[in-house]
């Protein structure tokens, strides 16, 4: 049985404009999965549904053997954490220390244990020197790392990144992606919600969402074999493949160059 099992969920704010339609998806423990889709495809709504911020109109979500319901939602939020897009709007504490503590305070972790964990996880995300800083003194990337530390301190099994890199500059984005890989290597389940293929290619498995339902899914190699899928889903191909396609149209693509471009697209 998979770790997260989503069965036929439907969701709509307005009956005439459904956001999620008959969406089914299962995610295994320890997997790094990317959920890709263009703006308005329903991918962020899916993230909110998994964490129980939205209740689907139909369908069920099972997480670690528990069915998501108003009674189990608090248990499930102890297992799955989420990092949102805007670093500023999820920083609750007055200082880095307070923010990392926020989740643990909610769980009722004793003070001594909390202080120990704050030190440990701040060190882990490289924010130990900033513990007493206020959010206004931090960059976007640093704030996202603080959010991750807060989730790690709660001993989560899985982290959802809901476009968590989209407001960061390229360097900070690269750093965060490297860091996410580290977390994955340590056994965490990673669910990455993004509209950026380059970013999605870091994942083991890609799920493309279109019009509120799963459009295609598979490993990156499988999906990249038919690049047209991405275009149909309203996404932009990786630069390497765009060049490869353009050259193909001009009949100027050697086998060697094609291989090279493929490799450069996949190399992460």
């Amino acid at each position, binding site marked *: 049985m998979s770790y997260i099992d989503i069965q036929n969920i439907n969701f709509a704010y307005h009956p005439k404009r459904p956001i999620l339609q008959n969406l089914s998806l299962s995610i295994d423990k320890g997997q790094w999965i990317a959920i890709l889709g263009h703006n308005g495809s329903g991918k962020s709504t899916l993230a*909110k549904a998994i*964490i129980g*911020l939205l209740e689907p109109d139909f369908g069920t979500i099972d997480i670690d053997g528990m069915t998501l319901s108003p009674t189990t939602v*608090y248990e499930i*939020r*102890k297992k799955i*954490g*989420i990092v*949102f897009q*805007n670093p*500023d*709007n*999820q*920083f*609750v*504490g*007055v200082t880095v*220390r*307070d923010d990392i*503590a*926020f*989740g*643990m*305070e*909610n*769980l*009722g*972790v*004793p*003070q001594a244990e*909390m*202080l120990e964990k*704050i030190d440990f996880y701040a060190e882990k995300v490289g924010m130990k020197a900033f513990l007493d800083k*206020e*959010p*206004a*003194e931090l960059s976007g990337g640093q704030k996202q790392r603080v959010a991750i530390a*807060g*989730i790690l301190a*709660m001993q989560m099994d899985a982290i959802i990144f809901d476009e968590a890199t989209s407001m960061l500059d390229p360097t900070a984005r690269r750093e965060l992606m490297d860091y996410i890989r580290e977390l994955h290597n340590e056994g965490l389940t990673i669910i990455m919600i993004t509209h950026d293929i380059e970013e999605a290619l870091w994942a083991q498995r890609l799920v493309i969402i279109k019009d509120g339902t799963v459009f295609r899914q598979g490993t990156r190699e499988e999906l990249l074999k038919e690049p047209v899928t991405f275009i149909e889903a309203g996404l932009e191909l990786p630069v390497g493949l765009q060049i490869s396609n353009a050259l193909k149209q001009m009949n100027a693509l050697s086998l060697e160059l094609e291989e090279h471009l493929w490799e450069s697209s996949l190399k992460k």
Partner: protein
Amino acid sequence: MKNVIIGQYIPGSSFFYHIDPRTKIIAVVVLMVATFLLETIWQVLIGFGIALILIIAGRVPIRKIVKGLKPLYVLLLFTLVFQIAFNRVGTIVLDATMQISPFSILFMIAATIIWRLLASFKKFSLLLFFAYLVGLFFIMKNLAFSPLWTTWQLTIYDQGLIMSGFVIIRLLIIITLSTVLTLTTKPTELTQGLESLLRPLKAIGLNSEDFALIISISLRYIPTILDEANKIMNAQASRGADFAEGRLKDKVVQVISLLVPMFIIAFKRSEELADAMESRNFVPGKPRTRIHDLKFNYRDLITTVITVLCLAGSILVKVL
């Protein structure tokens, strides 16, 4: 706009900084009550002396306290003028006939212009103001010449002066006390202290923890929102809006064009923040643990003793 410091807190490490915020809040309230029990000018002067000694002992920058008094100049001045003009008790200290004539009016206008020209010396603004008042007095008393239009009598009684001194010093003590509190206590500590003190109110349905969380989140978002306001102002200025000039009506329109987007953004932010808090297991009203613990130490004992002594002293002088 970044790094806006909220409240007046200035980092330091003297005695006052290490007192439990609860002790500090209660001590300030008790000392204020004690101040209001005092009845004569000599008593408030002694009270003010004690306050000064505490400030110097606590190494609180006096300059900052003086700054804190600024918004109250008008109130202090009003008290002074009111007491001098209407208090008719005691012996007369000054009884002067003031004369108004075309000449004296001209002189007064000239004095006003000179005073305003010198207003750029901000450091001496208070001193200059008093010099200006003395100047006006001198002009009306001595520089009238003829033709006299009218005269009036300026009579100052000693009790008027004493009472105004009394009221002003009492105000000074109270403001000094509250300024010392806000200068030496972080806003977060203050809210935590308040929360702890308001905890008994849970019996009547007021959840002080939620209240404290609301305050600390508001404090945390003030710089973010200011930053946002700045961005919107810049965006609007780049499209020709002018916040500094224009008639009052234009200004009101400008402010509305700033407030509407600010409100929308603030609501969006709070919605996202609520999601973030909920996903991190926040449940309103559920008991939480704290990383910051309030602990009493020997300093709190000393503070309490001094406070009680001051209160006892003021009760004693009232009874005797």
